[in-house]
């Protein structure tokens, strides 16, 4: 690393390191160190993501080159050895099964209280023409959080209002879509720690948010699950319903 201007401090060093990483000039060992940090330091990950976005215009320099004809069949052979599709499905279902198991055993006392809020009940302040999806996510009285999830299909925003948010410090709440059918949970984002949290639902996931899906919230390391799947206890879940 270069000697940073002391007055600019760590932020400036991080900017430079992130820029060098995205540019690609670092050594293999330094790249590995940066990647290890990326997985646990979300604000650094944001700086890297910003450089990626900023330098992405250079991607125009990569003009299409058709790969060899048999390349894709080799990829399929790597990913899907014969007769393994059933195994794939079984593996995909294991999280769901373990969630049920987890709920059944460890959180036997967690009463899942699902309330469908309606426009008339006063939960939602104003009428929306786009028929928002609403779910109230709650645990029992020992649980420290309750959330009201309201999804607006019009702008793809899912608005989470903590009814009572009080979790141990240095942990994040992560919102998941549980598609059912044995499919793995899809991260919808990390719930902001304080205040009225709005989660921007990724465009790719938006079509999946519809009547009857299940939302779940798990407690994860600060910044969100390191694996892309829930790693901590599921503290609340609820069905979403058109109102």
């Amino acid at each position, binding site marked *: *690393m*270069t000697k940073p201007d002391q007055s600019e401090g*760590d932020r*400036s060093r*991080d*900017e*430079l*390191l992130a*820029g*060098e990483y*995205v*540019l*690609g*000039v*670092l*050594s293999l*060992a*330094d*790249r590995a160190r*940066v990647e290890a*940090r990326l997985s*646990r*330091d979300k604000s*650094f990950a*944001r700086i890297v993501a910003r450089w*990626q*976005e*900023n330098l*992405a*215009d*250079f*991607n125009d*320099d*990569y003009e*299409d080159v*058709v*790969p*060899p004809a048999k*390349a*894709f069949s*080799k*990829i399929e052979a*790597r*990913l*899907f050895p014969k007769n393994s*599709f059933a195994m794939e*499905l079984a593996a995909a279902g294991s999280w769901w099964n373990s969630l049920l198991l987890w709920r059944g055993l460890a959180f036997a006392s967690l009463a899942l209280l699902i309330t469908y809020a309606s426009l008339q009940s006063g939960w939602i302040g104003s009428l929306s023409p786009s028929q928002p999806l609403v779910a109230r996510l709650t645990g029992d009285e020992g649980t420290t959080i309750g959330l009201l999830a309201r999804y607006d299909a019009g702008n793809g925003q899912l608005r989470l209002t903590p009814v009572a948010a009080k979790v141990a410090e240095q942990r994040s709440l992560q919102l998941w879509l549980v*598609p059912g059918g044995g*499919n*793995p949970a*899809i*991260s919808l*984002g990390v719930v*902001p*720690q304080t205040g009225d949290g709005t989660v*921007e639902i*990724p465009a*790719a*996931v938006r079509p999946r948010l519809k009547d009857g899906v299940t939302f779940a919230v798990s407690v994860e390391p600060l910044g969100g699950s390191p694996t*892309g799947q829930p790693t901590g206890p599921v503290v609340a879940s609820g069905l979403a319903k058109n109102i």
Partner: protein
Amino acid sequence: MATDADIAVLIGKVALRDRAALSALYSAIAPKLFSVCLRILKDRSDAEDALQEVFVKIWQRADRFAATGISPIGWLVAVARNHSIDVLRARKPVSDSIEESFDIADSAPGPEAETVMKGEGKRIDRCMEELESDRAMAVRSAYVEGLSYQELAERHGVPLNTMRTWLRRSLMKLKECLDR
């Protein structure tokens, strides 16, 4: 030509283990990603191996795409660039440059206000114009071809340390310009 939105949908389906979506994603983006591998590795056979690894990674990591906040094509190109650069650096090592004392410590938890990333659009072009042309060229070829500081220094006929200074100052100037 598939749009960003089409690609995003395909990545979402791949995250759900949809093999047909993987095939469609391959048709849409493999020529671009093969080009990335080829430009960086400069060998067709190596690039084909890299392309395989890249699609294996896409299959394995598709569920993480949503968390990155970058554009879907940008994410796919980043997977291909990162893999190809790793292969290149493993093949031809360069010296480490992160100071031991720096120890890339985690930054303090900051406000969550930056969760939604602002698109910078085409401002990078304008900012690149503010750099001296040889430095802008060095920045661009570092990115596009995955050149190391040493290779850039040789190409531009300047000492290694000069090239380090060039690129780092250029990065800071770009950052400053993009923040304006």
